[in-house]
Structure formats: structure tokens, C-alpha cells
């Protein structure tokens, strides 16, 4: 069962190496990029508060450091142990979604939050990670014949649709779409026929008008506003107009740190959360925003590298799911800020203020780092599963 004949055989015995060895094998370049992004977040939140570590920047960086330690801790856990926990984690995730429907507190018209051990958690954020893990566990020993067999793939589809439906019910359209996309990407990585995806996309496109009918009023308002932002300058379109002014006024080199007029004059409500990117773009200009884009893509690329270099299917698929999740966060947030897609409550990871997304992203990175550390791990045969 040697996976890569070029590697010396002893490196396959992953259980034999100790903590120090494992620490050496952590992808420290990845950790450095993540820390750099958190540093950008600190600078932006410091500016959002008008040049003060309170009330955003300080709390956020403390949460980040705490979560970084947790992530490194997870990286030390054998990926096979994590793989065994996939389905239980998925079950817990679904349970939390049910709990939040029953008892969660309402924020901005949607029931999304619950408090766990003093920490605010959006179960839908965790669900994305747990879904990728569960699907990877399902496909980890699947043969090409099986992945080509619709009957074999159907339970996986069900595993995607259950949480997506629950998240839609919250209602949280943005996260539901992201969750579905992550599931689809993992299926694609697992080797499911590509034209099935084309079929599903076509069906969704055709049924869009029907779906629109079932959207909540605020979701419809967002879409209408997106299509015509000028229609209500101080209503829902206000954010888009003001954030575009913020981006555009940045120019090549920006208005200077702590001197962005749109930011400091408070034209943007909630600028420390979803619209935090505009602060960077306004105060550091195109060069600043391009640097942040580069950093974001470096993280996505390093995550994909972990996926490609991993010898076991489980690790590849989970890493693909996690990198996709991070990519979708960035894509949805940046497009929203630039007025490319309707505004939708998705933060930009590690920069936006808020603990829930940070917690979820860092937990995912912990699993990703564990995959990297244990990328040559040997998974036992089906009889031992």
C-alpha cells in the first residue's frame, strides 16, 4: 500500500514521530501568512475605531492569538483521529443548527447565534468544516466506479442538503449557498462526474425565478438594491454607494493611514465588520488592496498545495473543502464591497471584527495544518475503519 515510492518507507510510519518532529513539519509559511493577515486586520480595526485599539482591534487580536494556539494544537492531532471524528462532528453540527433554530438569539432579523461556553458561535460556520470532513470520510476509500455511481453518491448529496436546508431556514442565504458550494467542490474533488454538476447548475438557474418567490423580503430588497443602488441612497443602497466611494477615493497609494475620510467620517455603518476592506482600500489605495488580495490568495494557494501534496484521500478532500471555504469568504465579501453581488453579511476572514467567523476559520486551519503535518499518513484498510 505504499502511496509514493519516492519517499523513504519510514516516513510512512507517521505514528512513530514525536511532537518536536510534528512541529517541524507544520507549514510555517502558511502560519506566517495567516499571522500577517491578522496583522492587517489589527491595523484596519485600529483605524476603524478612529485610531484606537478599543473597541475592536485589541479584542480581535487576543481572540486570534488564542485561536492560533488552538489551531496549532489541532495540528498536532493525528489526522486519522480527526477522520474518525468526522461523522460525529457532522452530527453535532446538525444538532447545533437545530438548537439555534429553537433557542438561538436573533441578530438582524435572523436566528443565527448561540452562546457556547461564553463564546458566540454561528453553528452554520462550523457546519461548513464538519460537512467537508464528513464528505471526505465518506469518499476516503471510494473507487472511481463508486464515485461514478449515482446510488453511491446520493447519501453524500443528502448529507449536503440537510445542513443547507437548515441554514436556509435561519434564514441565511449567503452561508447556505457557500455551504452547498463547499459540498459540491468536495464531490468534484472526490471524482464525481463533472457533467452532473453542469446539470445541477442548469436546474438551479432555471428554477431561480421560483426560488426568488420564496426569498425573504430583506433578501429580495438586497437583490433589488444591487440591481439599482441609486434608487434609495439612504436605504439599503447607501452602503454600496458609500463603500464604492471609499474604494474609489483611495487611488493608487491611498489617503494615508487613519486619514480615510469615508472611514473616519463614519459614512459606513458597521464598517468594522463586513466593510472593513474599504478601510484598507481607502487608506492604502490600490497598492494596499492588491497586497491584501495577494496575501489572501497566498493562503488559498498554500491550502491547495496541502491538498495536492497529501497522499490520502481524506486529507485531500478536507483540505480542498477548507480552502474553498476561505476562498468563498473572500470572494463573497470582496464582491459585495465592490457592488458585484448583493450585500450579504459575509465577513472577510481574519480582518473583519467578530469572533464567530474567526473561530470557525481558525478551527478549519487547525485541521488543515494537521493534514499538512500528517500528509503521508497511511489510512488503514476498510476492515479496520
Amino acid at each position, binding site marked *: *500500500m*505504499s*502511496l509514493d515510492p519516492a519517499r523513504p518507507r519510514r516516513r510512512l510510519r507517521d505514528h512513530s514521530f514525536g511532537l518536536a518532529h510534528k512541529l517541524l513539519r507544520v507549514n510555517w509559511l502558511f502560519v506566517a501568512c495567516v499571522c500577517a493577515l491578522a496583522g492587517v486586520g489589527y491595523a484596519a480595526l485600529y483605524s476603524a475605531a*478612529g485610531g484606537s485599539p478599543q473597541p475592536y482591534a485589541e479584542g480581535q487580536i487576543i481572540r486570534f492569538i488564542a485561536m492560533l494556539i488552538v489551531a496549532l494544537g489541532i495540528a498536532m492531532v493525528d489526522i486519522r483521529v480527526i477522520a474518525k471524528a468526522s461523522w460525529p462532528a457532522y452530527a453535532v453540527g446538525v444538532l447545533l443548527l437545530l438548537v439555534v433554530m429553537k433557542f438561538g438569539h436573533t441578530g438582524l432579523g435572523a436566528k443565527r447565534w448561540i452562546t457556547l461556553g461564553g463564546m458566540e458561535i454561528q453553528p452554520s460556520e462550523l457546519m461548513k468544516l464538519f460537512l467537508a470532513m464528513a464528505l471526505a470520510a465518506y469518499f476516503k476509500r471510494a473507487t*472511481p466506479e463508486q464515485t461514478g455511481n449515482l446510488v453511491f453518491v446520493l447519501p453524500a448529496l443528502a448529507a449536503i442538503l440537510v445542513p443547507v436546508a437548515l441554514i436556509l431556514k435561519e434564514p441565511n442565504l449567503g452561508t447556505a449557498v457557500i455551504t452547498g458550494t463547499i459540498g459540491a*467542490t468536495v464531490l*468534484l*474533488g472526490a*471524482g464525481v462526474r463533472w457533467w452532473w454538476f453542469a446539470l445541477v447548475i442548469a436546474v438551479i438557474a432555471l428554477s431561480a425565478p421560483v426560488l426568488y418567490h420564496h426569498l425573504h423580503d430583506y433578501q429580495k430588497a438586497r437583490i433589488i438594491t444591487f440591481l439599482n443602488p441609486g434608487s434609495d*441612497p*439612504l436605504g439599503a443602497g447607501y452602503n454600496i454607494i458609500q463603500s*464604492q*466611494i*471609499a*474604494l*474609489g*477615493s*483611495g*487611488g*493608487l497609494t491611498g489617503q494615508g493611514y487613519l486619514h480615510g*475620510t*469615508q472611514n*473616519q*467620517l*463614519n*459614512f459606513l455603518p458597521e464598517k468594522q465588520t463586513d466593510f472593513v476592506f474599504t478601510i484598507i*482600500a481607502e487608506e492604502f*489605495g*490600490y497598492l494596499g*488592496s*492588491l497586497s491584501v*488580495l495577494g496575501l*489572501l*490568495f497566498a493562503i*488559498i*494557494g498554500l491550502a*491547495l498545495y496541502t*491538498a*495536492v501534496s497529501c*497522499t490520502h*484521500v481524506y486529507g*485531500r478532500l478536507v483540505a*480542498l473543502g477548507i480552502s*474553498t471555504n476561505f*476562498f468563498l469568504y*473572500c*470572494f463573497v465579501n*470582496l*464582491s459585495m464591497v*465592490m457592488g*458585484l453581488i448583493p450585500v450579504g453579511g459575509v465577513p472577510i476572514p481574519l480582518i473583519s471584527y467578530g469572533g464567530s467567523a474567526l473561530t470557525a476559520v481558525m478551527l478549519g486551519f487547525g485541521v488543515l495544518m494537521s493534514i499538512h503535518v500528517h500528509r503521508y499518513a497511511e489510512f488503514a484498510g476498510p476492515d479496520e475503519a
Partner: protein
Amino acid sequence: MRKIARERAAFTRRALLIGGGQAAVFGGIAARLYNLQITQHSKYALLAEHNSISERLVAPERGLITDRFGAIVAGNQQHWRALFLQAMAPEPQLVLENFFKLVSIPPEEQTRIAQDVQSRPRYIPVLLKDYLDWPDMAAIEINTPNLPGVMVEVGASRVYPLGPGLAHAVGYVARPSQSEARADTVLALPGMRVGRTGVEDYQDESLRGVPGFVQTETNVHGEVVREVAHDPGTPGQTVTLAIDAGLQQLAVQGLGDNAGAVVMLDATNGEVLAMASAPSFDPSLFDKGVPADVWDGWMKDPKHPLQNKATSGLFAPGSTFKPTVALAAMKAGVLDEHTILTCPGFFKLGDHVFWCDNHTAHGSITVTTALQVSCDVFFYQVALRVGIDKIADMATTMGLGVDLQADMPNVATGLVPTLDWAKSRGIHWVQGSTVVQGIGQGYTQLTPLALATMIARIATGTAVGPHIARRVGGVLQDGSDPNDWPDLGVDDRHLAIIRQGLFEVVNTPNGTGYGARLTLPNVQMAGKTGTAQTHDNTAAEKQQGFNDMTMAWEQRPNALFVAYAPFDNPRYAVAVVIEHGNYGAQSAAPIAHDLMTYALTNDPAGRDAPLTGPAQSGTQALPVSSGA
């Protein structure tokens, strides 16, 4: 194995495809950003500069302070003022030059305005001139086109209807300092005031309110086209004091030209019904800025008008301390109602002689009589028996020399000495020091507020503490219910003995406070006089008697009186201190008499509406605007 390798290659292919797609999306985002930030930069830069929606914050109305019946004791009065919003002026310097030509502004104010314009955010308006008169306003209105960003609007100034009558308790407000305005941009708003003393200071957070904003749409010339949104903010909360304005005015009258303080409490819950300190000052002067000559006058005045003597004036308690000494002795078991001690008019300790008041020989007496006639020699001996630390213990129980947790700023703790305290100060404690402690002289220093607390605690046997705010934003504050306060933990029989002594002080012809007895039917007051030396008399002066009226004012003893009533069901407690007023019975007790008579007639304690309707003197609504 080949199969696995092929599978992995297929995954790598798909992963790279996905990665490539993501890279393309990032490229698209970067291109869109290029379009926004570089290609369309000049358009958006202009939009940002003349952002069509300009927002400015407006100061909230400061909360009112009223007496317990709703009479305003700190309110707001409207006036016109000129503000300047930089965000609306393309060339701020030019606008300011034009403005200074039209309206006369003193040079130092011009400097202040220039500084504010430079240092403050563009959306915070800068105050150009308060209290505009009609010629100023006409000049500004006519020249509006030359003054973009200059606005005339209604501002509020703080007014105090009782003027000096409640200045110390309510305190005053002033403009925030430059550093305060820098630390909190809200305070930089014109019209914002910060409480500096008294309730204005202690309740500043509640009184301040939350600023609102005005959003206006402006054209490229900075002219306001229309007001888009107007949020007046949340006015500060009303603070309803426990003070009864009628009682308060009576207390101020009673103090007259003297220097001193009066504190009257609801004995059952510690609410401050009256708190006066004399001489006083006009608190509204601080809102506009105190003229230099007035300030100098205050600073030079030997009677310290700015000090709230009720909360921070420290006085030797004199004989008003005797009940505490007696309670300490009874608790220690060295004194009871039958104990008889002899006063030959003096007390010898070693070769030092301590005199009784006026060298009077009181003979063989019990503790109640010793209180009644205020015999010093009796208490010299009691103090020696009980010892200094146990006296201090009982003083702590009575609220003396401790932090009373009052809802007022700058409340002095005072001092009741202990052996540890003496040791820490390097003071060699001799028995003679304990002897004078028995009559409240020596190191002991207490505030009138603490003395009022003490007499309320003796009266009720409850550990009440003083507090002046009855309601904040309409919500009754903790401590307003007598049941909020714990039992004092002093033996009821001991308290009964002391109360009997205090009853005899006021209601028997031999009592030192007999002159202040109430003339109301079926109700008696109990109290204790005090005459506290403030000056170490020389041997020559002692020959004449230290309370000689011929002494210079600042060498005369302080006059004190503490009392409560009704005797059988205490509801009111009062402490009066007249600085250098000689005998307590002579200058302090009459004030207590008048206050008690008023209180027992109108019975404000525990009430939110006057007993006899709003027409009652002092409680009617005062003619003051309640603000914007």
C-alpha cells in the same frame, strides 16, 4: 497501486483547475479594483470630498436635576449661538476671516477657534460664539453666501434656579477641557458640558445623554440643499434629588452670613433632604466662564465659598461625639445606666488638669445626666476606661471616619484615631490624648454629613448611609427603602439609654439644648450640642475662659448640634455646624429647630408629591424653561 496514483493525479488535475478558477476570480476582483481605484479615482475622490451626504453630530440636551417634588434645580435655557462645520466649507480659513470681520470675537477666542478648527474632526462643529445678540445674528444671516459652514442654531446653557442656595450639593458644569474633548469626541460638540462638582459631577454619565445627528445633502458649493435625516439624540436622564427645596431654602436662611454647613437626612433611609454649605457661590457662572475678579474673590475668602463644607469640611465633633463614646463603653461593659461618676469641675491625670466646660462641677451623675448637661469630666473618665481603639470601633459603626459610599463626589472620610493610626504617623499616644478623645477633641475630624449619619443611626438603630439622588431617569435608587439598610448591630438597651440622654438635652430645663425644643404638639426632638475648640488656648486665655466672645472670629470655637425627631418614631436627622459660632446651643441648635419644625409640618420624607399640594412654599415649580 497504479490505480491509486492515477486517482491522485486526477485529483491534482481537478484541484489545480479549481485553483486556477479561483485565481481567475481574484484576477477579476483585482481588475475591478483597478477600475474603481485607478481609472475612476478622480470621480470618486470628488464624491468623497463633497460627499453629498454630510453628517454632523448634535449635542443632546443635558438631563434636568429636580428636587424630590419635581422643582427644577438645574435646567437648561435656550439661546442662539453660531457654529462652524468645516465639512461644508471649501476654504475654512477664509470663512473664519469673514466671520471675524462681521462679529466681534476677542483675540483669545479667535485663537481657540483656530485651534479647534485644526484639531477636531471635520464633522464636529466648532463653536464660534455663544449668546448671540440680534445685530450679530442679522449680520450672519445677511452674509450667509460668504460664510459656508457657519450655522446659527439654538444652544442650551445650564441654569440653576436656586442659585447659590443649592450650589454645593448640585454642583456646576463647565465646558470640557481641551484634553477631555480630545479623549472623547462627543465632548468636543458645542454645547456639551461636563459636571465638575456635586450631583452634576457624580451623575454626569446619566445626565449627559446620547448625541444625535443631522444628515444634510449638500451641493458641490457646500450649500445645504435639504436635511435628509434628523436624530435629536437621547436627552440625558432626569435626576430627582431627595432634597426638599423648601427645607433647603430654610437651611440656607438659617446659615445666613455664617460659615458652616447643614445636613438633614431622612433618618429611616439616609436620603439627604437638605444640604447647605455657607457661604455659597453662583453656579451658573461656570457655564459661561467665571470672571477673573469673582474667582480671585472666592480664592481669597477665608470662609472658602467653593468648598462643600457639608461633605468635605472637617471639624472636631466636640460633645456631639459623646454618645459614641458612651455606646463604646457600654458595649465594652465598663458603663451602664447606673454607673455614677463624679465631676468636681476638673479632672487630673498625672500633673495635667483637664477642665470641665466653664469649670462647672456637675457632681455625681449618671450617663444620661452627663449627656444632658454635657459634662466633660464624666466622659474623660469613660474614655480612659474604654480605651481609644474601642471608641474608634464604635465610631466606625456609627459611620464616623469611614467611607460612607455616598453618591456624591469629594466626600471626606474624616478621621477617628486608633493606636495603629498613631503608630503609623509616628505619634506618641499618651493617656491625655485618650482623655480629650472622650469629648470629641484632639485628632478627631468629621464632616457634617458623617455627623448627620451618626445621629440618624442612633435614632433608628439602622446602619443608614447618606444618599442624595432619589431617582435617576425615574427609577427609584437603592437605599430609598428603609428595609434596604441593615441593622446597626448595637444593643437596643444601650441605644435606649443614649436616646433618653439626648431627649433630656432638648426637653429638660437643665439640658444644653432646651432652647431648641419643639413647640409642636405631641412631638419631641432629641439632640446633642457641641462646642469644639479650634484654637489651642494660651494660659492667659484660659484664665479668661476660651469661649470669650472677645476672641478673634477665627479663634472662636465651632458650634455644633445634632438632632433627630420625632423622639418616639424618628423620621428626620439633622447636623448643623457653624464655624466659630461659639456654643452649639446658641448658634447651631436654632437652625435645627426651624428645620425640624418645617420637616415635621410638611413631612417630605418618603414622598414624591408634597403633603399639602403644590402651592406650599418652596415646592412650587420654579419659572425655568426645561430646555429645548
